């Protein structure tokens, strides 16, 4: 039964006599091969990730020029009419950068929770007061913590979040290199 559960590569290691010197080399070769496929998959995944991230970045840049009043998901926003289109664009951009802490998978722009409404209002006021984007981000992070941002800044607390995947990738690469070297 164990055979079925184990991922490819590990099966060989557990089902064969690993103490036998002749066989162990064959096994490590098989494992090295399976890791090569894993590596290829990882690289493909990384490339795909980079492409989609780039594409969505382009999208965000394009859509942030759309005035917020025209968007269907921001019904109540007519009251936050901005005299300058730049401010409207900034409002649209900022409300999409922050998480609504009540409905955590919705941004402030999408959510209709009372807290999201209040924070939209607060952001519109801050924009009208002439605060810059980084100032508004600090304002919210000081009150609600890093979690309020979908893309938190690079700090000691978020270092694992940003670098974790790359550390795991390096770890995998290290294993592959070690196996081939053996």
């Amino acid at each position: 039964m164990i055979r079925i559960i184990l991922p490819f590569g590990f099966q060989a290691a557990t089902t064969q006599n690993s103490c036998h010197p002749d066989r162990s080399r064959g096994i490590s070769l098989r494992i090295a091969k399976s890791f090569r496929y894993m590596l290829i998959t990882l690289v493909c995944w990384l490339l795909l990730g980079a492409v989609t991230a780039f594409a969505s970045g382009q999208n965000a840049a394009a859509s942030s020029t759309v005035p917020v009043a025209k968007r269907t998901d921001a019904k109540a926003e007519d009251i936050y009419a901005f005299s300058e289109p730049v401010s409207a664009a900034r409002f649209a951009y900022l409300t999409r950068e922050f998480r609504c802490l009540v409905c955590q998978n919705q941004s402030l722009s999408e959510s209709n929770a009372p807290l999201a409404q209040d924070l939209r209002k607060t952001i519109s006021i801050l924009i009208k007061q002439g605060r810059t984007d980084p100032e508004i981000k600090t304002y919210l992070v000081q009150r609600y913590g890093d979690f309020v941002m979908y893309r938190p800044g690079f700090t000691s607390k978020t270092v694992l979040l940003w670098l974790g995947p790359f550390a795991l990738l390096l770890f995998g690469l290290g294993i592959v290199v070690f196996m081939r070297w053996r």
Partner: protein
Amino acid sequence: MHVIAFLWLFLFFLAVVLRQGLSLDPRRLPSALINKPLPDFNLATVEGGAPIRFTQKTFLGKVSLLNVWASWCASCQTEHPVLMKIAKTHEVNIYGLDYKDKRADAHRWLKTLGNPYVDVGFDEQGSLGIDLGVYGTPETYIIDQDGIIRYKWVGPLTDAVWEQELLPIVQKLTRGGVSTS
């Protein structure tokens, strides 16, 4: 074969970490204001009329609880008997913050359910709520003698939560209560 053993160990470690992640509640967020002083505020109390007297200075000199509630909040009603019990123990002063509420509703609430609060600030617009990082009522903060936020509990208090989580902190702060300012 050491590598295989090492890999298994690593996978096991990863599984433990991921399993741990599942048991965390994403709704229970740490407050960004722990160990920071209370923000500036000037609020009228829920009784109204009297001049503004609910400020951060209200909290100086003793350990207190700040309970954020509203009459429209169902879990606040569940929590209310627990607050009444805590008030009777005289372990700590309880202050309330009536969050985005109507005065008449709040009055009715305190009259019918009882008033465990020394004083209740009236935050009609939710502005102090935003400064405190309130994202869901009820929330309860522990404020020390110097007006510094030491702890935040999100969600209704229960007897168990009070006895196991908040009371030890309150007692520790009270014991170590030499005001430094």
